[in-house]
C-alpha cells in the first residue's frame, strides 16, 4: 500500500484514504461548447499514459476531501512530489526519460 503525502493536510497517509482521479494538468477548455472535434478529442479522450513520470490527480477523499496533484514514477510506483491544485508542475530530475 502506497503512502501519499497530502499537500493540504501536510501529512503522509495510507493509500486507503485516497482516490485516484486521472491525469493532471488537463484544463477544461474555456469555450468548451465551441471547440472542434479534434480539440474535444484531445481534451477528453487522449491521455499521455507515460512510462516514467506521470502527473496525476488524487483526492484525499477520506481525509480533507481536497483534490491535489502528484508526480509519480509509474515504473517504481514512487511518488516524487505532491502539490496543490493550481500550482505548476514541479521540475523533477529524470523527467522526459
Amino acid at each position, binding site marked *: 500500500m502506497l*503512502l501519499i503525502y497530502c499537500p493540504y493536510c501536510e501529512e503522509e497517509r495510507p493509500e486507503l484514504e485516497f482516490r485516484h482521479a486521472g491525469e493532471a494538468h488537463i484544463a477544461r477548455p474555456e469555450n*468548451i*461548447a465551441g471547440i472542434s472535434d479534434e480539440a474535444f478529442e484531445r481534451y*477528453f479522450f487522449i491521455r499521455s499514459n507515460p512510462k516514467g513520470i506521470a502527473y496525476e490527480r488524487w*483526492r484525499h477523499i477520506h481525509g480533507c476531501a481536497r*483534490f491535489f496533484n502528484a508526480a509519480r514514477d509509474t515504473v517504481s*510506483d514512487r511518488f516524487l512530489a505532491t502539490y496543490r491544485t493550481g500550482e505548476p508542475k514541479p521540475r523533477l530530475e529524470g523527467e522526459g526519460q
Partner: protein
Amino acid sequence: MAGAFRLPAAGRLDAGRTLRFTFDGVSHTGLAGDTLASALLANGVHLVGRSFKYHRPRGILAAGAEEPNALVGIHRDAARRTPNVRATVQELYDGLNAVSQNRWPSLSFDVGALNDLAAPFFSAGFYYKTFMWPRAAWERLYEPVIRRAAGLGVAPDQPDPDNYSNRFAHCDVLVVGAGPAGLAAALAAAEAGARVILADEQPQPGGSLRFESGAVIDGKPGWEWAQETVARLAAKDNVRILTRTTGFGYYAHNMVALAERLTDHLAAPDAQAPRERLWQVRAGRVVLATGAIERHMVFPGNDRPGIMLAAAGRTYLNHYGVAVGRRVAVYTACDSAYAAALDLKKQGIAVPVLVDARQAPQGGLVEQAREAGIEVLAGHAVTGTRGRLRLSAIEVVPVAGGPQRRVEADALLTSAGWTPAVHLFSQSRGKLAYDAGTGRFLPGTHAQNAVCVGACNGTTDLGMVVEEALHAGAEAAGQTGAQARGATARPEARSPEGWSAGIAGPAPGAEAGKGGKAFVDFQNDVTAKDIAQAVREGMRSIEHVKRFTTTGMATDQGKTSNLHALAIAARMLDKPVPEVGLTTFRPPYTPVTFGALVGHGRGALFEPTRRTPIHAWAEAHGAVFEDVGQWKRAWYFPKDGEDMHAAVARECRTVRQAAGIFDASTLGKIEVVGPDAARFMELMYTNPWARLEVGRCRYGIMLREDGFIYDDGVVGRLAEDRFHVTTTTGGAPRVLHHMEDYLQTEFPHLKVWLTSTTEQWAVIAVQGPRARDIVAPLVEGVDLSDAAMPHMSVRTCRVCGVPARLFRISFTGERGFEINVPADHGLAVWEAVWAQGERHGAVAYGTETMHVLRAEKGFIIVGQDTDGTVTPDDAGLAWAIGKKKTDFVGIRGLRRTDLVAPGRRQLIGLKTLDPSIVLEEGAQIVADPNQKVPMKMLGFVTSAYWSENCGHSIALALVEDGRARMGERLYVPMPDGTIEVEVTSTVFFDEKGERVHG
C-alpha cells in the same frame, strides 16, 4: 520415552512433558515442543504422504517452512479440517489428530501408485498433449478423473468457524527473521533506541542456532545466546517480538505483511480468540534476516522416505533429540553436511558412509569426520536407493566410474548447498545479482529502504554474520532518527561451519536415469528428466520451463528446487544461469489462510449495512427486504400469505385508488449552498436554474463531459443561495465526488459549499389521490391547496412539530408529497403519517411497487433504463436541456458526431401481444425472428413488469430509432419461443399526466 528414536542425551525438549497424538488413527506419544514431524520421526514414522502425480511414498524432507512432501490434514472437529499442513511446521499439542492425504485405500497401500508404473506416459506436458479431444470430455471426464487421481488434501466442507484479526503497526526498524543475524540486528537497533518489531516464523527465535551445534557467540553456545538475547529484547519497551509469525509479503513503501499464528499450536484454543492475525507493518527501515534454505541432492531415487536434508536431520537430533535412523548415511557436495555426520556420530548413531560429490573436499570439518572414523567417499555419487516404503540401502559408485557398492542405511541426509532466501528482498523489487563464484543469487540493488544481513545476504561465516547484522541494526536505527543511547557491545561469534559452496542440478555421476527418477521438485513430482525434456521441446526461458513442467509451482513454490531446475535448463541450453532467468518471487512466501487475509470482513461484517430510520417499522410490518447497494430497502409488504405478485398488485392498485406511503430515505441528498449556487447548478446540470423560483422544484439531469446521462433527481430551491439536490440511491457518493471535482478544480472561483445530507433526512413519500388528506393534519403553517402548493414545489415547515422540508413531487404520477424530517424523528413522523394513512385506506409500499408505478408513467431509473451510453435525447428527455445555455458539463459531448447521428437507440415502451407475458429485462429485440443467427439486435428490454393498473404487462426498451417505430411489431426471441411486441409510448397510464395535479 516419547518414541523409540528419541535420544535421552540429545535435544532441548523436556522428556517429562509427553503429549498424545494420532496419525492415520494410530496413537503415538510426543513431547511438548515437538513439531508433528519430529514427533512422527521419534516414533520411527517416515512415510507420511503420497506424491501429487505418481503417488510415490514420501517422507519428511525438511524441518521447516520449505517442506514439500510432508503435507497432512489436521482435523480438530467437523469444521476445522485444515488440509496441506506442513508436518514440519505444525506444533504438536495433546490430542492432535493428523491424517495423510492423496492415498486410497491407505497410506502404505495406495492404488494410485499405479501411476508410477505408467510414468513414461506422464512426462512433462502430458496433460497438454493428451487430453485434447473431444473438447467436451475435458469438463465431464478428464478433469474430474485427473483431479481425483492427482491432488493434495481435501478442503473442509463447512464454513470456517474461527475468528481472524488484523492490525496495522508502525516501527522504525522491522527485522524479519530471528536467527543470529536477525537477533543481532534487532539488538543493535533496539539499544540505539529505535522502535523495533522482530518477527520469526518459529515458536522460539534462534534460526540456524537450533541445529548449529558448534556455534559460539559471546562465549556461550549459540542457542543459549539466542534465548538470552530474546530475553534482553523482550524486556525493552521499544521492542515487539512476534513469534510464529511469517513475513510473507513485501509491498510498496516498506509495507510488510506478517501472518501470526495464534492458536494452531494449542490443544484447546479459546473459541473466541483469533486463530491468526494479519499484521500490516509500515517500517522506516526493514532488515531482512531470512536465512538460507538447504537444497537436496538430485540423484535417482532421491525421494524415498528416510532421505532428508542434512540440516533437517541435524535439527531433529540437536533440537528435538530425535534420531532420524539407526544407520544414517550422508550425501553431500558441501561442508555443512559433515557437521551433521559428526553430530550423529557423537550421539552414537552409525554413519556408515559419507558420500561427497566433490573430488577432493578439504577443511576442518572434513578432517574431523575422517578423524571420527566416518568413511568419507570423495568423488562418489549415489546412483540409486532401495526400500519400498522406507530407505533400506543406497548404491554408491565413483564419479569417474567403477564398481557399484551397496550400503545399508535407513536414512540418508543430503545437502547440495544453501540457497539464500531472497524471496522478500525480491518482492520488494530489489534486483538480484548472480554470484558465479558461489552459484548463488544474492541481493543486489535495493529498491526500498531495506538491508539484507546474514545468510540471505550470502554471508556465511557466523562471526561476519553477527558483525554485519549489528552494524545494519545500528545504522537502521540511526537512519530512522532514533536517539542514540550508546553502541551495542560486539560479541565475538564463531562457528566451524561455512554455508557457501555446493552444487545445483544433478550430482556429478548421478545424472544417468537408470536407478530411477531423480526428483527436482518433490511436491509437483518434477524430475531432472522432465526439465531436460522441456528444454528439448523448445522451452528457452525458465518461465516457460516452469509452466511446461510445473516445477516450482506447488504450494512450496520451489523453495528447495528452483535453483536445481534453473541449473539443469542452463546446462542444457549451454548458457550462464542468469541468462536463463529466475522465476519471479511473489507473495506469499508460505501459504497464508484466506481467513487471515479477510480478517473480520466476512459474513455480516463483509460490508456495512445501511438501514433507514424506518427500517424497524417495516420489519415489524412484515416487509421483505432487498439489497440496494449497501442499503436494506423494504421490497414489498406481503399480507396474509400473499406472494410477491399478489402483494405488489395490491400495493400498486391501492396507491392509485387511495394512497400509499413509501420510505424514500435512501435517496441521495446534497445541499448546494452559496452565493454562486445557482451558477454552479447551471454548470452541473443540463437544465436552467437561474430563474427557478424559490419554493419550486425541477427535475435535473446530470451528464458526464461525454454527454451521457450520469445521474438525475429532483432539485428544490429553498432560497436564492440554497438548493436541496436529490440523487439516485446508489449515485450519491459519485455525484458528490463529481461536483466536488468541478468545484475544486475547474470552477474554484465559485463560492459554493457542498454537503452530503443523505443520512440527515428521513424521507416519507405519500402518494395517491388521498395524499393531501393524509398529510394535511400533520403539516403546520403551509397552504397545501393545488393553487398555493402546486406539483413541483417545496416548503420549509414543521410536520408533527418537527422541522421539515415538504416537497410536492411525484414518482408515481399521482398527487404526491415527500416529507423530509431529521432522521432522528423519521420513525415517529412515519408512524403519525401511517396512522393518518390507515384512516384513508392507504398501504405501505415497497421498492417493487415504486418501480412498477414509475414504469407505468415512463419515468426512467438511471442505471436501469440507461447504461452510460444514453443521452438525454435517447431517453426522451431532450426537453430537460436548457436550449439557451452556453455551458454545462456535457454540452460539447452532446454534439459529438455519433451522439447526433440518426439510428441511435431510443427509449420506448413495449406491449406484449399476449398481455399476460412479462418480458425479461435484458432480453434482445429483433425485427425479424426468422433471420439467420446471429440476428441483428435492434435493442433490449430495460424494465418489464406486470401492471395491475393497466391490466397488461408493460416494458421499457432501448430500440434503434425507437420513436419512429410507434405501433410497429417487433420480436423478442427467447429460448422457449419468440414473443411478439408492439412499440408504444413510454407512458402507459394517465397519458395526459392529469392525476399528478390532483
